């Protein structure tokens, strides 16, 4: 349970942002240091209720898995590094969310990283974009080609054809099919 000073500041913040009673009460039930750490994050990013809850849920699940406190997670190196970056509010929120996601889904993130490298090695022109399924929940790859003339179209098609025969292409589908 948070102590009275932190409690007042949480209530003030949650009240000003029209947080639901359920979320506020859940917040107030945290240990003081955890509640305060969450408040610092909320103040830093001017978080709305849904934004806070998304970050909080992941941080809580990481803490449960790694036997840490919520505060430990929110000040852990990758999250702290994202918080320290000189970015605008929205970009910083994205960076922090990304850092937390990597901690929350380490195996998935590792496969996504490898897929990024593999897609890079396909050496496709800028006009071709490979779109992977969200959270890799599927094995379908979407290929987007954006061109303004026939030559660019031809070049994109030739590059795609060459890439289809490469080992990287095989690895891409193998990674989407089953975790290594």
């Amino acid at each position, binding site marked *: 349970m948070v102590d009275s000073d932190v409690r007042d500041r949480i209530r003030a913040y949650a009240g000003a942002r029209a947080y639901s009673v359920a979320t506020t009460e859940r917040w107030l039930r945290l240990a003081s240091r955890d509640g305060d750490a969450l408040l610092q994050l909320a103040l830093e990013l001017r978080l709305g209720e849904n934004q806070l809850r998304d970050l909080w849920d992941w941080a809580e699940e990481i803490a449960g898995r790694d036997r840490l406190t919520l505060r430990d997670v929110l000040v852990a190196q990758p999250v702290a590094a994202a918080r320290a970056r000189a970015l605008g509010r929205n970009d910083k929120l994205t960076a922090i969310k990304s850092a937390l996601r990597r901690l929350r889904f380490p195996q998935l993130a590792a*496969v996504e990283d490898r897929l990024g490298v593999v897609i890079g090695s396909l050496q496709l022109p800028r006009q071709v974009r490979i779109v992977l399924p969200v959270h*890799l*929940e599927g094995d379908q790859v979407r290929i987007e080609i954006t061109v303004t003339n026939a030559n660019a179209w031809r070049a994109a098609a030739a590059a795609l054809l060459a890439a289809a025969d490469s080992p990287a292409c095989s690895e891409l589908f193998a990674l989407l*099919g*089953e975790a290594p």
Partner: protein
Amino acid sequence: MRVTGDSMRLERTQPWVPDALWIERGEEDSTLAQRLRARLPETPVHVTDDLSTVEPKADLTAGKRRLLVQRHRGTFLQHCPAGTTGMVCCNYLVMNFGSNCPFDCSYCFLQAYLANNPALKVFTNVADGLAEIDGVLRAHPERTFRIGTGELADSLALDHLTDLSCELVPFFAARPNALLELKTKSDRIDNLLRLDPQDRVVVSWSVNAPAIVAAEEPATASLQARVVAAARVQAAGYKVGLHFDPLIAHDGWEEGYRDVVTMIFSQLDTRRIAWVSLGSLRMTPQLKTAIKTRPQPAAVLTSELVPGPDGKQRVWRGLRVKMYRRMLEWLRGVDAAMPLYICMEPAGVWEKVFGEALTDREVAHRLVSAQA
């Protein structure tokens, strides 16, 4: 996720006994109510006009401590709730002669599914349910139905009190176009051993890695006790089903699941296995919320669960496929002929795991024809 523990103890579980018995007025003289009163002489009994007033709304733990005895109004036979658009389904039917379960598995979907009806209930008008099923079976003699009682309740956990199996087994033993599946995490098989199933009854156990059983399935029979019970019903003429569901991606899952496959099939006759199912942990937002309110939130929440097209969270697909394929490899290594299926997965996952994507009808047909 880290889980530790040992669920290999053999001693039988204590039979579940409620703190109180609540009987709907008008059902006091039903066979079931009389049987329960006789078998629970120390348990306080209340008769009431409106059972809804004694149901501890939104409190599943309290709900598991009292037994409500009532007449069921509505249909008994339903499609399995796991059937979902976009997922391959085994065309299973469920019949509900009760609702909720005395066990307390951390991942149980009933925590969300029965959130508004959390009391443990048994229904007095079993004969009505059997008449309904009989009508369906007679209307479709060309079809063989797989029907289970273990979706909204454990099929055997209360059998020492209700003797429900003594009505169901003879009923299905006499019907050529249906297979009854009794699904349980208990070891309450005493009634079954006295009955003749005529090859129309499958007794199934939900099983898991020992670490998961120990950490996430409080009050259930130990893994070893389940397997011993399975061996005994096999010897008594029943086929046995196994449900590795939910598979949970925990530290050491490969060793855990490989070892449990080895352990189970060192004690069971694979020729008397009706089917084996695999299923990944499925988590609705409501279930996740319910799990978080448990006194000790379950470690299952720390798996790498991501949302799928049906709104449920599962471990991401590549990891699920890996788990299914490992299980398939180990199970096929034991006996390549055992019928296997996976629950609530899209055709694409079936194709990755089995090398073919079957329709619902094909899955159902294979499971039925394997019993011939």
